[in-house]
């Protein structure tokens, strides 16, 4: 079973080395590809110096574009399972098997690592948690999926979804949107409890004002997506 970990990275020069070393140590049987989204700091240099596997964008596309490129890479190299993992160290490779197992055994097509099922580990700020709860509600409205951790970038997909996401991946709010997309196209989604760490270095790409903007635009976008897509038959 060929497994690929997709690590989108934008200005993560401080944490990317630790992330990769951690991954190599705890999950040596996983391939990985770092997608450098035209970082303006020393990220590319760190990647080159350490001989890490990476692709580098000549121009910034955002998290959606970076992750989609990862899926394209997975499709090109015929991977069976692709896992998204953040480049800032919030996701612990020891939980990789928790999200890969359900997908590997066909229990679901996409498994999302969720902080909020067991409520352990880093729980994020109150504002973000309220926002995430709201998005959960909107997702349930749009496609019926009960997902607690909607913005979790720690998720595993099978080959079918790899193919789908390489051609159809939301550019603006990919994490919740991908859930709705996958669900409306008939794929099965499951949530798995995991523990996440707090971001130690660098700055999150979502600050307070951006959070507010995000919380208005995302539900709107999801609802529009639902209206403009409708529910399709199971594409198996």
């Amino acid at each position, binding site marked *: 079973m060929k497994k690929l970990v997709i690590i989108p990275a934008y200005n993560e020069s401080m944490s990317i080395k630790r992330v990769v070393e951690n991954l190599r140590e705890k999950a040596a049987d996983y391939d990985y590809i770092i997608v450098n989204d035209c970082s303006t700091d020393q990220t590319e240099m760190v990647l080159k110096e350490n001989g890490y596997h990476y692709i580098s964008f*000549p*121009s910034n596309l955002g998290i959606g574009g970076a992750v989609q490129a990862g899926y394209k890479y997975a499709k090109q190299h015929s991977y069976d399972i692709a896992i998204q993992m953040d480049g800032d160290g919030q996701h612990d490779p020891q939980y990789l098997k928790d999200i890969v197992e359900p997908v590997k055994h066909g229990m679901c097509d996409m498994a999302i690592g969720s902080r909020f099922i067991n409520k352990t580990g880093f729980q994020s700020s109150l504002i973000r948690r309220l926002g995430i709860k709201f998005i959960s509600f909107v997702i349930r409205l749009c496609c019926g999926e009960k997902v607690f951790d909607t913005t979790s970038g720690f998720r595993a997909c099978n080959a079918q979804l790899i193919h789908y996401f390489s051609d159809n991946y939301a*550019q603006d709010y990919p994490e919740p949107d991908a859930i709705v997309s996958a669900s409306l196209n008939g794929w099965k989604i499951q949530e798995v409890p995991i523990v996440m760490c707090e971001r130690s270095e660098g700055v999150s790409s979502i600050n307070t004002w951006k959070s507010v903007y995000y919380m208005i*635009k995302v539900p*709107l976008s999801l609802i*529009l*997506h639902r*209206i*403009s897509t409708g529910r399709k038959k199971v594409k198996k």
Partner: protein
Amino acid sequence: MNIILQTFLLIMVLIYLIFIIYLLRKSKLELKYALLWLLSGIIVMAVLIFPAFFLGLASKIGIVEPVNMIFLLQGGFLLLICISLSVIVSGLNKKIRILVQETALLEKRIRDLEEKRTDAE
């Protein structure tokens, strides 16, 4: 406002909104760019449903005919959308320029590698 005109314009706006949603379904329009178009349709619809309220506001700036209020709104939205399109095009232009340059540089690298390989043979 004339009820016939109100109804006619309302139907037009509904057709317009349905058309935008159709374009979204066919993936001919990206959601991000559709938002402004949809917003303009919704606001014009709100003005058509409650003309008295909006005319009250509009008369403060000197508008007499209700229809002119609709025209002003539509004109304003078109201007806004055109400006945002220009901004988007500028961004795209920049990205294309970067792609052209990077592709050319990559081509040189590949050519050099091929030459090195034929030299070695």
